[in-house]
């Protein structure tokens, strides 16, 4: 019989998992098909690092000032800010590292207690946790410099607050994992998230209109928050600063109670996982259904070649089954509604005088295009292994790209018309020269971007999970190229519009954009054949990346 290895200690297991995560990240970076992609990632990491360090300095200075000037109430927003960032960021934004499923560790010989401890330790490896701990340490340093006698209290509070946050984050994460196992739930939550994101934008106009009573009700609102952990942490520091030992113990005790409750709930949740909870979105086998023969009807896509028509149909089906994309299509008209309430109409909330439709319309169409064109830069994201079909079937890649671009252009046209309708209803349409110039500019920008976006999609593909929002990010190069092209196009369009204004020739921009649109469309079709050659050259990268 084979010998049995002795049980590994929990600290050793934690070290092993930390090493595993590091290796997963390192190998992920090594697989980049382009150094440019890696540069994009490094640049994003530098930006995030700068944000963390910058805010650490701000938190440290804030804590120092708060203690030095005895404004201990400042600690409430400090702790609330860190708490909200820690919890919200880990839910909605993917980390910098490659994804790694914690549950997959269950096949190893863990006891439930070891699984719990490892699970908790795992929570410290998130970007949000690391950044938040950095800021808490900055607060501690600020307090210690201002008044060293507060350091013991601060250390205890920071320790309790950290434990509470990591436990809460793991608990929420484990519940979300269960909820998000089903695609429909994911889409529903994503819809709520989008609506919340958009809803937040309406706060400013509402506050502007009803701001009168807000300051007086703020203290009353803050008292409602006092039983919650960030307020308790702030209370403890404020009480220590005021020499109220009893209050310090009461607040710290409150935090301990929270930690106890959350730990019990997390234990229960992880125990369910430990016992083999099944998370799957696969549908149960359905009963046998006798399919009626559907008569062949007239094909609406007859003007297109069979291949392009087939791709149009397939793309439409993919679009209609991707709840996230459908929900995100609601954004442009809603944002047009928002902008018209902020900048236009009879009661603009941001400016004193409403911006004229001639100014607002081109700007908003630019914004709509900016939002809707981004997916074109990674148009094979959802193909998965199906990408092989494009290379085994007798089809020219120009037809594949044409089919994909046509469906995208159709969605864009629908969204532009919808947004224009909202605009017309809210503040009216712009003058004819501006209307024609803007529509021609949209055609110029879209056709031009398609040609470049197709090349980027072929050269720097990134697989995205269908119906998932966590960990979904296009390649660094495609993000930066899209960003650069859109800035360039915005610059060109603005310059032409301003030229019309400077020369007092209202039709000049329209003429210029019509010329550019014609050139851009011609360039797009001319590029399609060349892109077929690029696809042939890049097929190995495409297949390897998307079939992974």
């Amino acid at each position, binding site marked *: 019989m*084979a*010998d049995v290895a002795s049980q590994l200690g929990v600290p050793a297991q934690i070290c092993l998992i930390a090493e595993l995560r590091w290796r997963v990240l390192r190998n992920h970076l090594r697989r980049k098909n382009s150094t440019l992609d890696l540069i994009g990632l490094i640049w994003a990491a530098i930006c995030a690092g700068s944000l963390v360090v910058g805010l650490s300095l701000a938190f440290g200075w804030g804590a120092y000032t708060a203690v030095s000037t005895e404004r201990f109430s400042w600690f409430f927003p400090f702790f609330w800010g860190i708490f909200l960032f820690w919890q919200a960021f880990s839910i909605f934004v993917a980390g910098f590292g490659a994804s790694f499923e914690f549950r997959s560790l269950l096949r190893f010989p863990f006891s439930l207690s070891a699984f719990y401890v490892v699970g908790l330790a795992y929570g410290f490896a998130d970007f949000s946790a690391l950044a938040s701990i950095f800021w808490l340490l900055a607060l501690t340093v600020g307090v210690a410099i201002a008044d060293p006698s507060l350091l013991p209290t601060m250390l205890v509070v920071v320790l309790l607050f950290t434990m509470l946050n990591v436990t809460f984050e793991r608990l929420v994460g484990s519940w979300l994992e269960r909820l998000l196992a089903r695609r429909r739930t994911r889409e529903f939550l994503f819809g709520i998230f989008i609506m919340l994101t958009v809803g937040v934008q309406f706060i400013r106009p509402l506050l502007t209109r009803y701001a009168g009573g807000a300051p007086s009700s703020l203290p009353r609102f803050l008292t409602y928050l006092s039983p919650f952990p960030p307020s308790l942490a702030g209370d403890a520091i404020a009480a220590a600063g005021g020499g109220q030992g009893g209050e310090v113990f009461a607040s710290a005790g409150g935090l301990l109670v929270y930690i106890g409750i959350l730990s019990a709930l997390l234990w229960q949740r992880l125990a369910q996982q430990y016992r083999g909870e099944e998370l799957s979105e*696969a*549908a149960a*086998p*359905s*009963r*046998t*259904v006798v*399919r009626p*023969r*559907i008569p*062949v009807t007239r*094909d609406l896509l007859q003007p297109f070649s*069979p*291949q392009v*028509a*087939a*791709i149009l*149909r*397939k793309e439409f*089906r*993919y679009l209609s*089954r*991707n709840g996230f994309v459908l929900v995100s299509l609601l954004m442009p008209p809603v944002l047009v509604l928002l902008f018209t309430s902020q900048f236009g109409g009879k009661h603009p909330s941001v400016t004193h005088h409403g911006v004229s439709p001639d100014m607002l319309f081109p700007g908003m169409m630019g914004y709509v295009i900016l939002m809707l064109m981004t997916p074109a830069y990674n148009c094979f994201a*959802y*193909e*998965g*292994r*199906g*990408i*092989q*079909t494009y*290379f*085994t*079937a*007798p*089809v*020219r890649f120009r037809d594949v790209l044409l089919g994909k671009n046509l469906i995208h252009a159709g969605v864009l046209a629908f969204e532009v018309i919808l947004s224009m309708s909202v605009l017309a209803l809210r503040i009216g349409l712009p003058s004819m020269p501006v209307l024609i110039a803007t529509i021609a500019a949209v055609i110029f920008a879209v056709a031009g971007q398609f040609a470049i976006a197709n090349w980027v999609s072929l050269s720097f593909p990134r697989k995205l999970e*269908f119906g998932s929002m966590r960990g979904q990010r296009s390649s660094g190069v495609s993000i930066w190229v899209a960003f650069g092209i859109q800035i360039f196009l915005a610059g060109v369009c603005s310059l032409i519009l301003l030229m019309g204004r400077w020369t007092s020739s209202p039709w000049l921009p329209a003429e210029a954009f019509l010329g550019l649109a014609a050139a851009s469309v011609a360039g797009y079709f001319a590029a399609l054949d060349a892109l077929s050659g690029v696809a*042939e050259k890049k*097929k*190995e990268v495409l*297949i390897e990346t998307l*079939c992974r």
Partner: protein
Amino acid sequence: MADAAIVTEKLTRRFGPLTAVDGIDLQVAAGQFLGFLGPNGAGKSTTIKMLTGLLAPTSGRVQLLGLDFSSNTLEVKRQIGVVPEGMGLFERLTGSEYLNFVGRMYGLDAATTRRRSEELLEFMQLADRPKSVISDYSHGMQKKLALAAAVIHGPRILFLDEPFEGVDALAAGALKALLARMTERGVTIFLTSHVLEIVERLCSHVAIIAKGRLVAQGSLEELRAGVAGELGRQTTLEEIFLSIVGQDDLGRPQMEELSWLM
């Protein structure tokens, strides 16, 4: 070979310093059912990818049905069917939608595509889940669908990369019958499989690749003639395979070295 369906000349593919396929000269006659065998990492999938246009050769030539692949890509692709490694399915379409998509991509008209899709779904016993998307299919169902998609346009050569992996015995029986019928009608089939019994039962010819080189090719009888078996008993394909490929594995650790596992 005048009626050769598949011909390769010095077909080579390198990945950096690694030569995955090393100067293969392969000839498969029209109507042959060829089993392409080799140990893991021998170069089977790389070869089939080059034969189907999924991978460009580093050097060498591929000729299918008398046409040079690199200069007649679309014409060649019209006449071949492929079940690639990983099956190449669009997982968010239903089975019916996928077959209709593939049929149209191969240039079939709408009515023919629809009729063949329905017949293939019935034959493959996939017609009872019309609303399920492919990602909800079992692995075996996906294999059957991939095979249906590979034959919907009536190809003259069929390339199958591990087509029976994960397919249940009942379905495998039906698929074998389908493939046998296709070879009777003159279709050339190029199949890779790790299950030697399947290859032995289905294939008339066998080619064996090891470390990127073609080490044997011929009919089963020709290969049997080259390997001595026990008296009065026919040599099995497994014995042929091991006698040709197994000799290279002398450097492999012996079981005695795993005494701690015994």
